[in-house]
């Protein structure tokens, strides 16, 4: 847990958070805390957002049918709310990733052309 005001603590755009969450859920259903851990692992702690912001995003994706929630026993034998990705979610993730590839390639091209350190 990095406590300093490091630049890595960027506010992640909603869409990105959703995409990463869905990506995380493609491995296995997870509860909220599990997702937040997985997000930090996946991004190498770069995307260490306020963990609370995950929950509105989950609620939004529930509403859009990208994920669904159910209750199950967690590691420490407590009931926890698990989320799993739906077919709808898979489709959405693929579309988003394609979009991301597309735009990030474009951004990269621009950045390469830009004079470094000007």
């Amino acid at each position, binding site marked *: 847990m990095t406590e300093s005001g490091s630049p890595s603590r960027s506010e992640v755009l909603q869409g990105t958070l959703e995409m990463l969450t869905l990506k995380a859920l493609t491995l296995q259903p997870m509860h909220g805390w599990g997702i937040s*851990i997985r997000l930090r692992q996946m991004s190498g702690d770069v995307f260490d957002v306020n963990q609370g*912001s995950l929950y509105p995003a989950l609620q939004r994706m529930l509403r859009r049918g990208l994920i669904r929630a159910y209750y199950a026993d967690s590691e420490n034998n407590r009931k926890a709310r698990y989320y799993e990705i739906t077919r709808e979610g898979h489709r959405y993730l693929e579309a988003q990733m394609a979009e991301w590839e597309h735009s990030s390639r474009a951004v990269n091209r621009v950045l390469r052309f830009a004079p470094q350190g000007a």
Partner: protein
Amino acid sequence: MAWYHAVRTAFDAIVRRAREERQMDDEMRFHLEMEARRLMTENRMSEEEARLAAARSFGGVERYKDAVRDERGTSWLEDMVQDARFGFRTLRRKPGFTIIASLTLALGIGASTTLFGVVKAVLLTPLPYAKPEGIAVLWSAWKGFDQTWLSFDEYEGWKAGIPAFANVGLFSDGAVNLTQNGESERLRAGFIDRDILPILGVEPELGRGFTAEEDTPNGPSVILLGHDVWRRRFGGDPSVVGRAIEVNGRSRVVVGVMPAGFRLPLDFGASGPTLVWVPLGATAEQNGAIPGPAFQSGGGNHGFYAVARLRPGATVLQANRQLSDRVAQLRRDGIYPEEQQFRAFAVGVEDQVTGRLRPVLLVVFAAVGFVLLIACANVAGLLLVHGEQRRREMALRVALGAGGQRLTRQLLTETVVLTGLGAGLGVALAAAGVWLVRNTAPAALPRVAETRLDPLVLGFALAVGVLAALVAGLLPAFQARGVAPSMELRDGGRTATSGPGRLRWRQTLVAIEVALAVVLVIGAGLMIRSVANLFAIDAGIRPEGVLTLRLSTPAAWYPDSVRVSAFHEELRRRVSALPGVQAVGLVRILPLASEMGDWGLQVEGYTPPPNQGTPGDWQVVTPGYFEAMGLRLVQGRFFDDRDRMDAPPAMIINRRFAELYLAGRAPLGARVRIGGPDQNAPQYTIVGVVDNVRHNGLTREVKAQFYAPQPQFATNPGNTSRNMTLVVRASSDPQRLVAPVRAAIRGLDPRLPISEVRTMNEVVDQAIAAPRFAMELLGLFGVLALVLSAIGIFGIVAQVVASRTQEFGIRAALGATPRNLLMLSLGSGVRQAMAGLIVGVAAAVVLTRTMTTMLHGVTPTDPVTFSMVVALTALVAVGASLVPARRAARTDVAKVMAG
């Protein structure tokens, strides 16, 4: 798919709101605990440190909870639910306000919903015919008769010669005796030709209609039963179709059963619906007409109703144009004498049935709209005061971050809750109102008794409720938006006085209420005067204490007039022997109950102007009738036992007859022949003159009328009156005579059915049912309007007094007498009332014009009514102001100044 999840999460959010909240809470706590545990094991933090760190990295539980709630996509709904709950709580804290406001709204909504139910039943529900807009009732008319029967020639002529008509059918009405299991019953019957049912587009629910063969004078004896008679007398047994039953002492085969609610086009009036139908079987020969399209001079006997089906695309207007062209031709051809002013016209069946009631209903409906508006204005006023008292609360909430939008919405929601209560109560009131209408509506008002509280009417109540919420709630809501916390809260503990602007709104509302009430009360006043005038009309009879009932002596049992007369004589003898009977007689048709036809007469010594006849309305009576009905003798004598069948024919005429045909001569002893120009027509001698009776209606012109004794008229000119009405004058309550009179009739001939048992007062009441209905409702609404306005005025004065208590205290300290203070606060209410009064009177001058056709003997701008209403309203305004104003007069200087 997405919408499904959206709906589900929204549903969960609302219905399972508590569970959702708990789950969210659990989930976040779980997260924080897991995170803390991880920090304790991985980063070796103390429990305390770990918990703090977890919370920090989470970033504010409440903030994200709110964000999650927002993401449920239902925050507007949740806000509404919250507002509604809040509204309920607020209202529960102020039971007085809530009760008065919701009752006021309930009165407005209940009254308008009831009236809408009536309007729907009478004006909006189609008549029980196929395409009723293509059906017209046909009438003939001439001088002295605005709307009368057709002759057979006219029927044939219009059927063949009016292109706008696809078909024309004839019918008439009367009554038959139905005998079943030895029990006789007199039923109103329709005599219809074979085209009537196809023209109306109605088919029997069982069996069939009449065939051409049955619709002839000597065709097979058949009958169609009404649904109700079929159920009541035959237990709804379908096998009755094809069976013979006893009608008028003869056998008739039931060919079908008509559906429930079937009515002939003229069945919606006071005389009630026909219940069974037999073929008319009319021919030209029987009716003094020429077969085929040719016309007998004068058209022949007029005695039929007719109804036409318009050709597709044709209108009543076109039909009327074609009819008047055709009549003009007949007049040119000399078929109808020019002076007779013969006309023929068609009336759309809907106009025919409800045309008379429509203006009355629309005026009353408008009146109830006024009551509703007054109720809304009143509630708006109450909400304004309520808002006054809550300005500090509002200011506080604005200061704490509630948006203006949100406040407006919250106030509106409160109003909606209030109107919801009002609408609920209003529907209950409407249910009671509809029940009352159904059970008390005079039979003379067509279709009013069909009023029901159906989904459309309930929908109307809902719409009115929403409208009321908007009207009553918008003003207070907009006012609340002007709340500036700095201003309101700076005042310290003291309640802010009402600003002049806010008070002005309320005063305007009260002025509007008074104006509306004035219009209503003036309308009610005009109706009351008009109905009083109707009551004051001298009908020429004394209806109090008179019992009437209809009897008929069928030819099957009383084959000739001698037997009929003997029966009448014996009946009179037996009934007059009953205790409590002052006089008894029989009459052909009751005054004010139905219209009378006329005979052409020859009055000795009187020559009518060229081409004009000497018509006289004919009434057939037995001795005793004049005394029983209470007619006034002008000169000569009434009929008595001298006027037997073989005695010299005696006639009694009305005053109008004497004025028209015997001007300047002594009427007694004058001789009159009944019948056209024939020299052999039977001759009668006038033995008496009675005062005019307004037979055809209280406000209708009185025509020349003659009375002939039943036995004599039966032989000269030869018309046995088999359907007569027994008229009994009682020394006390006529209702008490019903049983003994029935017993007397049964003792004489148990087979005879009795029908239309009514007191003469009931008959008179029916004659003025429509204006009376309007008067009663307008009167009720007028009182409601006044009461509501009084409450409004009371409220405003109370508010003014309350807000100026300090000022009054100072004034009192400076020497103002209680009287000064009383006048000062009285003024604040009375001023508004005066403004409303002026506007109301001006509006009434314009609006009461719509009532012209409903008024009798009083102009729409009747100065007496106007000045009385002005005085009444002023009185109410002063009265309503007086109560709170007296509180001002008692202002306690010491208490006020100390406070």
